[in-house]
């Protein structure tokens, strides 16, 4: 059985109770099908109630679920013939970033994705989905190729953040991310980015400055991890739940703030409950935007991407007298 969250326990209890009744009914030969049907209806209602009203912190838990589908789970369902290409040609191949060429609805595309592991062993191999500079440099190399051959670029975001260690600093983590942002702003091909799990700060943004930003409905995308935010605000990492609400980082928040363009429906309770169904939804939404973007001219694609980034952010145009009166 999948990892169960505290907020899912009422559902699980009812499911166990139904199983007990069914067993009792079979053992004693008593027909309790009506009772079972009533309880099953109750389960359905409860699921709708609980999963339909998830709090930000609960979404964080789902997005970080140990069985949350990662890019390699989606790849065979989204693409035909994904051919993975490796290395940044400068230092190494970063296994927290996968990239390559694939067929998507009959269109040749370049794919770049961040990949977390599913268990400790794989997580160590993939550095918990935290790319080093070589991962971002591999991304730029493959995206430059996409531009050269006129292929649309699809990126998939799923990282707690960029790697933060001495090696990352020595090899210019900041520069590597900045180059991703600069490169992406110049392409003449469609760029569609999708947050499939966790969107952790600058390390996520490096693959997120495209024409369109899609988000799976239980994913989140934040300037800072809720635990770190809680530690700064309240000097208490256990207040991550409060920080999660304050940061307004859920897919629904980002849609409201004009950062995300559309949300992708997940199977009930999270993508891990039904990978095929979620992949199917994802495929359809990406396809819709890809068709739309491919009808634009290369120059327009680039200009619209710039315009989109240019309009993100809110501010006052005139000085607030109250705040500035003593400053002259």
């Amino acid at each position, binding site marked *: 059985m999948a990892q169960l969250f505290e907020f899912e326990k009422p559902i699980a209890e009812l499911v166990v109770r139904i199983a007990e009744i069914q067993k009792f009914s079979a053992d004693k030969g008593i027909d309790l099908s009506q009772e079972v049907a009533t309880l099953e209806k109750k389960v359905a209602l409860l699921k709708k109630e609980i999963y339909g009203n998830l709090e930000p912190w609960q979404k964080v838990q789902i997005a970080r679920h140990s069985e949350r589908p990662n890019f390699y789970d989606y790849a065979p369902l989204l693409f035909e013939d994904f051919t993975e290409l490796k290395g940044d040609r400068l230092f190494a191949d970063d296994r927290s970033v996968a990239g390559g060429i694939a067929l998507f609805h009959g269109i040749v595309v370049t794919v770049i994705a961040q990949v977390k592991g599913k268990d400790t062993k794989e997580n160590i191999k993939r550095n918990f989905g935290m790319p080093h500079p070589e991962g971002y440099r591999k991304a730029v190399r493959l995206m430059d190729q996409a531009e050269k051959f006129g292929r649309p670029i699809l990126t998939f975001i799923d990282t707690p953040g960029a790697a933060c260690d001495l090696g990352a600093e020595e090899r210019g983590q900041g520069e590597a991310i900045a180059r991703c942002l600069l490169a992406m702003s110049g392409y003449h091909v469609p760029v569609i980015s999708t947050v499939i799990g966790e969107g952790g700060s600058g390390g996520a943004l490096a693959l997120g400055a495209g024409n369109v930003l899609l988000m799976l409905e239980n994913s989140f995308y934040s300037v800072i991890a809720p635990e770190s935010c809680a530690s700064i*605000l309240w000097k208490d990492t256990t207040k991550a739940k409060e920080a999660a609400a304050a940061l307004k980082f859920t897919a629904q928040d980002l849609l409201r703030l004009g950062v995300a363009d559309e949300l992708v429906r997940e199977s009930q309770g999270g993508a891990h409950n039904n990978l095929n169904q979620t992949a199917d939804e994802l495929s359809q939404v990406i396809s819709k935007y890809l068709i739309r973007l491919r009808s634009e001219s290369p120059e327009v694609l680039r200009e619209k991407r710039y315009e989109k980034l240019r309009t*993100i*952010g809110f501010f006052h145009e005139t000085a607030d007298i109250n705040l500035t009166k003593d400053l002259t």
Partner: protein
Amino acid sequence: MFKDIFRKTKYVTIKSGQMQNRTPSEVSMQGEVVGISKKELPDGLWVKCPKCGEVLFNKDIEENARVCTTCEHHFRISANARLALLVDENSFEEWDAELTTLDSLEFPGYEEKLIEAQEKSGMTEGILTGRARIEDIPFVVAINEASFMMGSMGSVVGEKIARAIERAIELRLPVVIFSTSGGARMQEGILSLYQMAKTSAALGKLAENRLLYISVLTDPTFGGVTASYASLGDIMISEPNALIGFTGPRVIKQTMRQELPKGAQTAEFNQEHGLIDLIVARTQMRSVLARLLRYHQEGAQYGATV
């Protein structure tokens, strides 16, 4: 005259071992041992160098671009002070000063923090932008203000930088940005994060127009600012000993349980690892920038033989 009496007298340099023998009155509020009680020290007359420990006459530091006269430690300076040191007198024309912050996420404590930052810095936001001249060469300048929420980048800082770059393209002027920043501003969430993309994309346009961008990294430059506009200079300059990196040393220690070696993330470390072109002392900054700007003036033909 007065200066000669008070500077570098014997009692002002104290070895750390002597600390214990001092009475509380000899240790200032900042923990600086000054040898005489705080009462006798007129405010702002003296300053202790955090690097060499020398207690210096404030006026001497001011006259030396706020660089320690003993060890050349570069004290942090305000955006306005830097501007005054850098550009030709009366040449600065400020842009977009009317842009002010909107607490669009209604983030806990943000409004109070903003008011506090404005009082502390005397500025409406964490960056100064506009156009100016150095040795009569016109250019677009942006300078982060460290005392405004650690120079962090929210919507206003990102927008002011993007507008300055776009105007530089219209006016066909080079751009010089001095960064001092903790990174993207937490209080504006995802909106701050996307200012990194916004400023980087604007620099892409500048590059496409073949205009020069010089990035000057000053102490400290970290996070989302390092990972965007600050790292994209045609020429990358830093002040000596400035701390520059992506992740701060405290966070690396906490999350990776990794202690960075001594000297890591300094300007010199970054230069050794191929990330910075030049390390320039503040006292030399004006003349070095003038030279670089001159190289890139349109129609410049140094050494042309025809």
